[in-house]
């Protein structure tokens, strides 16, 4: 049955006005119906599959919440950055795990008890940047992008399209450093949250 339908389908494709000078309308409708019904048979499973496959497009990241990362007194007064893990609730499909590392930030104490927070992820391709005390800069071990302490691109030929991503910081109760943790799309000059 399947072969017969297939052979009709190919016959239809190959059929030309020359080979059948007087097309029979009934014959044509039969062929068209066979193709339409045969083709529509796969629509249901493919549509069902595509809906599930596309599901991630509609989901938003759980990031963007304000998280207590450190205390002001734990940051060196000389302005040297320190790396801190960001502990929050990690949602991984069906798992929800509270208080686990979801990323990391470099915190740097600035004047007048303000703090700068930089996401450790390189905006070029997503590697983890390294703070190099000897050079007082950040360096990406993957494609050699380097960044100043304020996150700005140091080398004009740097592969990174933008500086390190600065995150909003709030000092609460005089000593608590709260960071609004967020990841951003890599490889583009704009800071687009993911």
């Amino acid at each position, binding site marked *: 049955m399947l072969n017969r339908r297939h052979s009709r389908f190919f016959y239809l494709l190959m059929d030309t006005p020359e080979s059948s000078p007087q097309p029979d309308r009934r014959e044509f409708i039969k062929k068209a119906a066979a193709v339409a019904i045969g083709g529509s048979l796969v629509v249901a499973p493919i549509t069902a599959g595509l809906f599930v*496959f*596309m599901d*991630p*497009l509609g*989901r*938003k*990241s*759980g990031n963007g919440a304000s998280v207590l990362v*450190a*205390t002001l*007194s*734990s940051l*060196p007064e000389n302005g*040297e950055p*320190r*790396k801190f*893990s*960001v502990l929050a609730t990690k*949602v*991984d*499909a*069906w*798992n929800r*795990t509270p208080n686990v*590392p*979801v*990323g*990391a930030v470099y915190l740097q104490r600035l004047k007048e008890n303000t703090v700068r927070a930089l996401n*450790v992820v390189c905006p*070029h*391709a*997503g*590697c*983890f940047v*390294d703070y*190099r*005390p*000897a050079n007082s800069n950040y*360096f990406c*071990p*993957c*494609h*050699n*992008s380097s960044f100043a302490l304020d996150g700005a*691109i140091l080398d*004009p*030929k*740097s*592969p*990174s*399209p*933008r500086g390190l991503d600065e995150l909003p910081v709030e000092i609460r109760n005089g*000593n*608590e450093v709260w960071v609004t943790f967020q*990841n951003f*799309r*890599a*490889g*583009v*000059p704009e800071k687009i949250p993911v």
Partner: protein
Amino acid sequence: MKPALDWLDNRTGYRRLVHETLYENVPGGARWRYVWGSTLAFCFVIQVITGTFLWLAYSPSSQTAWESVYFIQYEMAGGWFLRGLHHYTAHAMTVLLVVHLMQVVIDGAYKAPREFNFWSGIILLQLVLALSLTGYLLPWDQKGFWATRVATNIVAITPFIGPSLQQLIVGGSEYGHHTLTRFFALHAGIIPGAIILFIVGHIYLFRKHGLTPKLPRRRPDAAFWPDQVLRDAVACLAVLAVVLFLVFRYQGAPLGAPADPSEQFSAARPEWYFLFLFELLKYFPGGTEVWGAIVIPGILLLILAVMPFIGNWKLGHRFNLAYLWALLGGAALLTVLAIKADRGDPNYRLAVVTAERDAARVVELARSPEGIPPTGAVSLLRNDPLTQGPRIFARNCASCHRYDGHDGLGAQPKDKISAADLKGFASREWLKGLLDPEKVASLHYFGGTAFSDGKMVNYVKEDVASFGAEDQALLQQAIVALSAEAQLKSQRELDENEAAVIKLGTEALTGDRLGCMECHTFNDSGEDNAPGLTGYGSREWLVAFITNPEHERFYGEDNDRMPAFGEEKSLTRQEIGLVADWIRGEWYVAPAPVVAR
């Protein structure tokens, strides 16, 4: 027998199939240069067989992927061999693909009427590379995780559809369970399925147009069977021999530490055959990455695909040959540059050493009596004092303290040492140094602190220096007793065997002769003017000290610069426990060291 075979042939027509398969004409007779396609088919068969068996033991989720691969590699009978065979055959396949492509181009086998055969080959090349790319992530180790982040971020810069495409491949905006389920479906189902379809098409077209003979023909035409089949079999055997050598040489396939997005991994590199692309990206300044990652590789591939048309021109074949050599030469040059840059980078080398150490350590922990918890192996390293202690120390303590002269991780901090070196803290050896008039004011102990001219230093430099033999003996007993308070793992046996000395030492410690109780407290005796010595160096004592050295039990108001890490909440209780355990040498020790694979 013959009637049975006749019946079978009548029902299936197998004789014609076998005849067509074996008696394909080989123009000019069998030659070694025709073996490459067969070696590739052989490798694919190995991958299907080994992959199916790996599938039977693999579990794709972020809590079970690394764990199941670990189990295959280290626990299951012959698991390391199975993984090794799969891993190194993948490498062999990449090399053979390039050799096969070279043979096709050099022999002009891409020219009309074999265009479709050539194009199906180019698609097969990309599908096999896609298999490598997806397979790299499946063990869910640090190397695969970070390399895949880079690869999927590159996908995201594809014009217009990039971000959505990335989200579909990753299975969301974060890497996790659905990244693995998708990569696994691609690796074990969709891509192999496509490869089988294209191989069928490739072989069909190959048979339709016949083999492209290398001219001049040296011998008369012959059938595929048996001469060419024998050559193909020998070549496949040679490939297998090389793969087996690598499997035994490296005892299976590598497995790094479990993926951890919060743990720095500076040793992230793609598999060696993608290094040229990795290196290429370094030369494209920000904003132009799309050229290096997508446009230029795309154009180069397109030129390769139009070779059949270029080949029709007068000098077309020579151009194609030159192009292929330039392409391979360029890729080789970029690969060498990438390897050279890494070899000359001490930070990268250190990162590789750290990665290997973590990989070996997590296996030791997984094999410990506690085994892997349901939360996954990533928590083994996160809760391991030997792994985390030095990192916490380097970040928080090494700006003043040292551990055996370094920052705990082997590097030298920017700031000069200004507090004690804590290697062997509270051990007999360490206390002997502290109570040595020659050493107490050195940078190893109090030299860099506000106590460099304090009561303790003066006591050691003046009183202890003038001790006679009897007092010296008492002091040594007191050191043994004080050190026993720490209950160090490294001294446990010694402490048990010297209970009598400890008893005498305790009496000396609290007695008037040495004068310790004039400043310190011990159990119920003494003055509270210096850190208490009850339980000195024990886990409880050290955790309390790091939590708040300004507590009246310790330095009180006399505290030098040591932050109250616990009170200020700059370290969690767990982190303080980890660094205390590490300083005290309390961590799981495997009966036999594990060599990272």
